[in-house]
């Protein structure tokens, strides 16, 4: 328990530092936010007009489709909020500062994963949640559904965590992680709309391999009461397995660490 409080305190301080660093670049930060808001707005408008004309998308109504989109954003933004530091990992290793992180009595994994919580993303989360609750209202979910939704979202975040851990483990070994991250982002972006629209084998890949389907589409479906008990169970198992494997991988990667030369 004591360790947990300590880690939380460190995370808090790091996020605070991160936030303060960001404030010194106000202009860039605001442009970024505006850009993100615009992109979000454009896509919503798109869905709106599309469904106005087409009525359904792969069998889902407008509200449902919007809900999928919102859920996607929640998972996406939450993982960017927590794991923004992963994008800075490569420069960290290349410059040798990773050494300094390794030599501290705090898990280097923790530090490299969550050391740079992005406040800008944090700001966009409450409105997202508000939006989700609003739209969900139209879908009339039962309490069971809602609970499942929340649990599955957490599971989705677990998978995202596992993925980020895997990425930085790769980063230790090869340094070529920027591409890995981009591919990840591209693939998860396919989850903006319900995975059902994709044909096999793409849908299979998205559900089981890079489990965007499980991270995003599944929770939303759960809310709408469209999932089976097996499906849910399977996805939890996947989430746990993913974390386990990625942690193993990280430890392995450390033995291969070569450090920037001097």
């Amino acid at each position: 328990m004591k360790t947990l409080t300590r880690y939380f305190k460190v995370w808090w301080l790091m996020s605070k530092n991160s936030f303060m660093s960001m404030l010194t670049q106000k202009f860039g930060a605001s442009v970024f936010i505006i850009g993100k808001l615009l992109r979000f707005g454009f896509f919503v408008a798109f869905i709106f007009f599309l469904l106005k004309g087409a009525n359904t998308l792969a069998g889902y109504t407008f509200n449902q489709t919007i809900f999928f989109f919102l859920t996607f954003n929640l998972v996406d933004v939450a993982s960017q909020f927590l794991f923004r530091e992963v994008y800075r990992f490569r420069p960290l290793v290349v410059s040798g500062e990773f050494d300094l992180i390794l030599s501290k009595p705090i898990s280097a994994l923790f530090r490299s994963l969550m050391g740079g919580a992005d406040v800008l993303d944090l700001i966009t989360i409450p409105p997202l949640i508000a939006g989700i609750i609003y739209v969900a209202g139209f879908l009339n979910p039962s309490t069971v559904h809602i609970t499942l939704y929340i649990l599955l979202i957490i599971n989705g975040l677990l998978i995202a965590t596992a993925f980020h851990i895997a990425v930085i483990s790769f980063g230790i070994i090869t340094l070529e992680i920027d591409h890995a991250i981009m591919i990840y982002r591209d693939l998860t972006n396919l989850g903006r709309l319900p995975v059902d629209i994709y044909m096999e084998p793409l849908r299979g890949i998205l559900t089981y391999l890079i489990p965007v389907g499980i991270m995003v589409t599944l929770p939303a479906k759960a809310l709408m009461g469209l999932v089976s008990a097996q499906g849910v169970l399977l996805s939890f198992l996947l989430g746990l397995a993913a974390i386990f494997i990625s942690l193993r991988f990280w430890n392995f990667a450390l033995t291969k660490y070569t450090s920037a030369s001097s």
Partner: protein
Amino acid sequence: MQMFLVFFLWSSVFSDPSRELFGYNREKILTYVFGILVIRAIVLSARAVDVAGEISRGDITNYLLKPINYFRYWFTRDISSKALNLSFAALEAVILFFLLKPTIFIQTNGAILALFFLSLVIAVLTFFCLLFLVNIVAFWMPENGWAAQFLFIVIIAEFLSGGVFPLDILPIETQKVLNLLPFPYLLFFPLQVYLGKLTIAAILKGILTGIFWVVALAFGLRQVWNRGIKHYEAIGR
């Protein structure tokens, strides 16, 4: 990668092959999607995204000292980049074509094709001017030069040029406003011409608007550039 999203999206909307929506049928919409892939490589790929970086690092001084026209230098680099990207896009299109097997609409009317090429040329020039303009903001904001680029090119141009969805799904009034801006002429308009969805009159109107924008942007670019250079030299980097 986004191709998949867009392609399957429309595939699913038009899963019934006889459906007609927003003036598109399945064939036309899928052609649109593939067309965007190719045209994007021609119009939107550019190396001039590096200009802001060159300015903020001060590297631009080297070029100013040399007897070359900075614009032409970058334009040539852009063209070569476009050629490269075009070959990749063509490859991608072929692969995706065989994977997804859509029916594609091939334009056969010679006059229309000619106008199509003309619109492409206009698109390339427009984008160049736009991109450059947005980059030389770096003269005044070296730290944040990337910001304008991000906002305008990555976000605004992506959507408003028809890169994500064809602009005709938007209500008529909105479309009218958009057509006054340069963005639709980058991707959407050329594709519309190709698909034969416009009357000759509409095509000509569009081309004229496009030309207007090229001229206006080029002129504006020149003005801003001169001011920017003066500012740059005043700072003395």
